[in-house]
């Protein structure tokens, strides 16, 4: 969560590469394409934000990274976990998580140890019948040491590190004796106690009130600076993204529609959906009578969708005769800014210049978008 200008620093080594990840869920109404062709990279010490509305597939993406879906879900694509020192960054000796058996020892060795997960609801994420210490130590005993006394020491150390005072007493307490913020701290201690390379935080602060939210985010940033882990931060809260992430991927209906460094995305959003999201945040100093601009409609069900832009029906900038003809490609505007929209596609079916801002494509013909697969890693 380095907030220094991220564009100039040399890229840290790759930790996790997700390629063309898809999660299809068979339902009684048909096949739900909950996640459909998502690709992103995560680098050590950096934070990738995945933003989207409910139903955009962001949480399912997170669970896929640890093979946590039931066997009925159809998953495809690759999730490459590179070596801790970056040696596998060229993809040669990387571990493809999607190849691992769902209940096998291989994936269990990754879960909690190399990739850890923090869930949205600290209230329900702990078993009410076991002590906090028992549940934190469970991960430590599985991955780090078989010695209970040592595991307890590690647990106490992490509880103090995440700011749980009086850890000696707290370790033997039950979840119902912890407040929401304290539980989320305990959750973070549990996730970090095995020093994972990647931390996936699935809406870790959504259930917390704002002051606690700020504390937890700050804590995560401090721990990231100390341990150098990569964070995948899943949220619907753009304000949180602005404060914590280096890179942002905006998801809509199972696809990434725009991806850019955080400043670029906020300063220069290119996809109509991203712009809509940004406009829907209340701003300080807004006029009293000024209305928030909500995005019309709701996310449709990703079942039996025709091959057209899935945002088309809700889009204020749609081009009639173009957007319904095909699925837009993911285009590369700059080498780090990608967008999936016909507004920026020079090869879009109808060459009409659309109304509205198409700065990058219209004003600069030399800057031809390329398909991202050919981009340098």
């Amino acid at each position, binding site marked *: 969560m380095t907030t220094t200008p991220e564009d100039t620093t040399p890229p840290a080594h790759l930790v996790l590469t997700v390629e063309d990840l898809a999660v299809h869920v068979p339902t009684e109404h048909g096949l739900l394409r909950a996640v459909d062709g998502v690709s992103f990279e995560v680098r050590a010490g950096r934070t990738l934000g995945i933003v989207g509305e409910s139903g955009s597939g962001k949480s399912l993406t997170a669970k896929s990274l640890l093979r946590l879906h039931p066997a009925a879900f159809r998953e495809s694509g690759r999730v490459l976990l590179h070596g801790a020192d970056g040696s596998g960054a060229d993809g040669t000796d990387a571990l493809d998580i999607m190849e691992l058996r769902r209940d096998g020892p291989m994936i269990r060795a990754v879960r909690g140890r190399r990739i850890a997960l923090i869930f949205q609801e600290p209230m329900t994420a702990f078993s009410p*019948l076991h002590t906090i210490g028992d549940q934190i130590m469970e991960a430590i005993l599985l991955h780090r040491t078989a010695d209970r006394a040592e595991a307890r020491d590690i647990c106490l150390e992490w509880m103090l590190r995440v700011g749980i005072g009086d850890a000696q007493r707290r370790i033997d307490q039950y979840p119902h004796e912890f407040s929401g913020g304290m539980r989320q701290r305990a959750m973070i201690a549990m996730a970090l106690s095995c020093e994972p390379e990647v931390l996936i935080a699935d809406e870790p602060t959504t259930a917390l009130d704002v002051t606690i939210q700020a504390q937890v985010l700050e804590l995560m940033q401090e721990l990231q600076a100390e341990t150098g882990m990569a964070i995948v931060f899943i949220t619907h809260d753009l304000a949180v993204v602005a404060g914590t992430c280096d890179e942002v991927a905006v998801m809509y209906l199972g696809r990434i529609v725009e991806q850019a460094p955080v400043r670029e995305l906020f300063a220069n959003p290119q996809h109509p959906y991203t712009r809509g999201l940004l406009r829907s945040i209340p701003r300080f100093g807004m006029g009293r009578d000024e209305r928030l601009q909500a995005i019309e409609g709701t996310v449709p069900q990703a079942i039996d969708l025709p091959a057209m832009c899935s945002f088309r029906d809700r889009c204020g900038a749609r081009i009639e005769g173009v957007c319904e003809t095909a699925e837009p490609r993911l285009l590369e505007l700059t080498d780090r800014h990608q967008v999936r929209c016909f507004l920026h596609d020079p090869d879009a079916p109808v060459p009409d210049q659309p109304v509205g801002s198409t700065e990058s494509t219209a004003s600069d013909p030399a800057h031809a978008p390329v398909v991202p697969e050919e981009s340098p890693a």
Partner: protein
Amino acid sequence: MLTYILRRTLMMIPVVLVISVIVFWIIQLPPGDYVSSHVMELQKEGEQLSAAEQDALRERYGLDQPWYAQYLAWIWGILTRGDLGYSFAYSQPVLAVVERYMATTLIVAVASMVFTYVVAIPIGVYSAVKQYSVGDYVFTTVGFLGMATPNFLLAIILMYLSYIWFGNPMLGLQSPEYAAQGWSPARVLDMLRHLVIPVVVIGTASTCELIRVMRGQMLDEMTKQHVLTARAKGVKESTNLRKYSLRAALNPIVSTIGWSLTAIFTGSTITAIVLNLPTQGPVMLDALMAQDMYLAGAWLGFMAILTVIGTLISDILLAWLDPRIRDERRARA
């Protein structure tokens, strides 16, 4: 916790006393008393009792007094002398009658309960883990059949099968030749063989019900967020199932153990009559029909105490299992 148990135990005393009053009042509600039903019996056999003789009997047994006076005398006897009263029908103290049937009643009831839990919990867990598998459907079908079949019918079927296959319908709890003997390994074995049919008959309905409850509980627990958390930590599925899901799913079952004991006690009367079991069910039925009020009152009072104690045991077990309840209790104690 100790203060809690003590407090609950003290609270049981007034509850049981109130129940005993209600029980006694209800027993004497039907018109007539033991003497009049006894007279009816005698009349069937062609004997007559004069009105004077009847009154003498009533006076001897204290039946000429109002019911509350009878109750006070009875409860005073229990509290001061441990005397449960006199059974008219058996011409014995109630205590002696109760003692005779208590052991066999307890053996059948406890064996049925153990059978229920031992069979139902593993099957329920299996059905949940392998939801919608062939096995799940088989157990579901058998379960509903078991729930729907009347106990006495099942008892008759099993007796018939036992007679066809082993040449012995296994009536009662022991073979006649052992009745007069002392306890020996052979007699115990004989009793265990005789227990099979009653236990299966009495236990089947509750077993089938418990399978459904257990299956539902497990399905509910297995999808809880904290189970996913554990899985994301790298916990094995089998550990996850045992440590988190099963543990939590057992809570509501434990909390009803107390009542199921009394349910098995009282629910098995018809089965006991059909199978000729020397348990309290038929004795109780006879006592109520003959208005043998002290015997009936003692049994019903005993059931009440059992229910109250059972509830207390369930509550203690639940507090022991669930830290949230434990703390709530501690806060109130």
